[in-house]
């Protein structure tokens, strides 16, 4: 495999995207396309808080339509992004955009997304659009994390207690999963921790099911590109 820094000809001639901006439009769709996979469908309500340049220019860049389009599952080159407002309304999805120009210490292209599904579950996430349609997810439910969604990503929310990580790696190894990156984030010692595992290969859907049976594991999310 090539290192993550391999620049392909399609990084130069690409992404194929709905304009006008790779960071403000394509990247916005990519962020919410990843974030939607953190919660079980169907979604009832979604709220976007926009910061920095996102807050200032989101209308002219179609950032709002792209964010909502991503939540609806549209890829950055999907023309339905243009009509995402009316499509969301047809699907009964409530949405709201809140520009926040007071917060200045964040990356200029930052969005907080709050999703609520019909079961009443709420998930929040923060994404940043770093340019050229590339993004990072930097926060889930208030906990600082760091992943790009370019790999097959497994997010395990668990109690910060000894042995849990060993269970996770054992199950992955049972499925012959080769781990590219593994990171552990936590709220504070002994509280909730987030293990994020990124893999080159596709992660079998059985893995989340098996992990959920492990004591101290609260939730498992699978984000496949």
């Amino acid at each position, binding site marked *: 495999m090539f290192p993550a820094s391999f620049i392909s000809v399609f990084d130069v001639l690409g*992404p194929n995207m709905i*304009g006008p901006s*790779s960071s403000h439009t*394509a990247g916005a769709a990519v962020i919410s396309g990843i974030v939607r996979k953190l919660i079980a469908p169907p979604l009832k309500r979604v709220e976007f808080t926009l910061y920095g340049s996102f807050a200032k220019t989101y*209308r002219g860049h179609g950032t709002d339509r792209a964010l909502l389009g991503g939540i609806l599952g549209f890829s950055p080159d999907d023309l339905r992004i243009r009509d995402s407002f009316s499509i969301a309304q047809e699907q009964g999805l409530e949405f709201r955009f809140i520009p926040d120009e007071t917060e200045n210490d964040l990356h200029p292209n930052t969005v907080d997304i709050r999703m609520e599904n019909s079961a009443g579950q709420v998930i929040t996430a923060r994404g940043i659009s770093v340019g050229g349609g590339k993004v990072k997810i930097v926060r889930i439910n208030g906990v600082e994390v760091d992943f790009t969604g370019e790999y097959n990503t497994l997010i395990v929310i668990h109690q910060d207690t000894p042995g849990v990580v060993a269970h996770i790696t054992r199950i992955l190894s049972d499925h012959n999963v080769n781990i590219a990156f593994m990171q552990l984030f936590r709220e504070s010692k002994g509280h909730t921790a987030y293990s994020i595992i990124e893999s080159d290969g596709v992660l079998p859907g059985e893995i989340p099911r098996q992990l959920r049976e492990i004591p101290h594991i609260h939730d498992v999310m699978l984000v496949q590109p």
Partner: protein
Amino acid sequence: MDFKSGAELLALCKQENCQISQIMRRREYAAASPGDVENRMKRVLEIMRDSTRRPLKTPQRSMGGLIGGEAMLLAAHAANKQNICGPVLQIAITYAMAVLEVNASMGLIVAAPTAGSSGVVPALLLALAEQYNIPDERLLDGLFNAGAIGYLAMRNATVAGAVGGCQAEVGVASAMAASAAVELMGGTPRQCLDASSTVLMNMLGLVCDPVGGLVEYPCQSRNAAGVANALVAAELALSGVPQLIPFDEMLAAMYRVGIRIPVELRETALGGCAATPTACNQCGSCSNS
């Protein structure tokens, strides 16, 4: 097969006795299956072609309301035989304006290397194709060639207007287009890199100052100007006019100039065109006073 600089690319072309496009293809084939790579590039060409034509039939107002309909004006002007540019340049600037219109109205484009500079490469390649009956297989060569130049710019400098100004976006796009044009018109790999170097030299210092912070104005017109720069550089290289400064050195110079451009002139919409009184009156979202 990989290369990290223009010099290494030229050495590979010499060693393998082939064009820049072939070296770039082989580099890509090592990362993904050749069939997939070729199919993806055919899709790139298809989107590019569509985005150069659509505004000629159905002009669209941009999201920010600053542009729309320019490509149709150019086409009508040429249809009346009033154009003062020769056919290649006239068609190319029409297409460049068209792609930026598609982009600004939330249409489908290929970032090349960015959305704000997406008009230059398709415009020049497709204008040459029309004028010289270049088949699609050869246009794909042109795209791989352009990709090699863009890859070096991304690897060794920047293609972000926020980092290096418009010279890094439209400048690099034009350098890519010039190199591709030289290969398509029968030039050598060395002449390709000379043409790219000339473009960067001639566009050195160009600032990024979008009115209202939007990818509309002056971006659209600058894409047309970029095509002209690419065509000039390609003609110089194909004529055998030597370029004193090698591509790698010019790329480094572009990057050093770019990071010295004041932040007001790097996509922040705080200077240049964006800060003119007329521009400020035009845009409601503008944060300048």
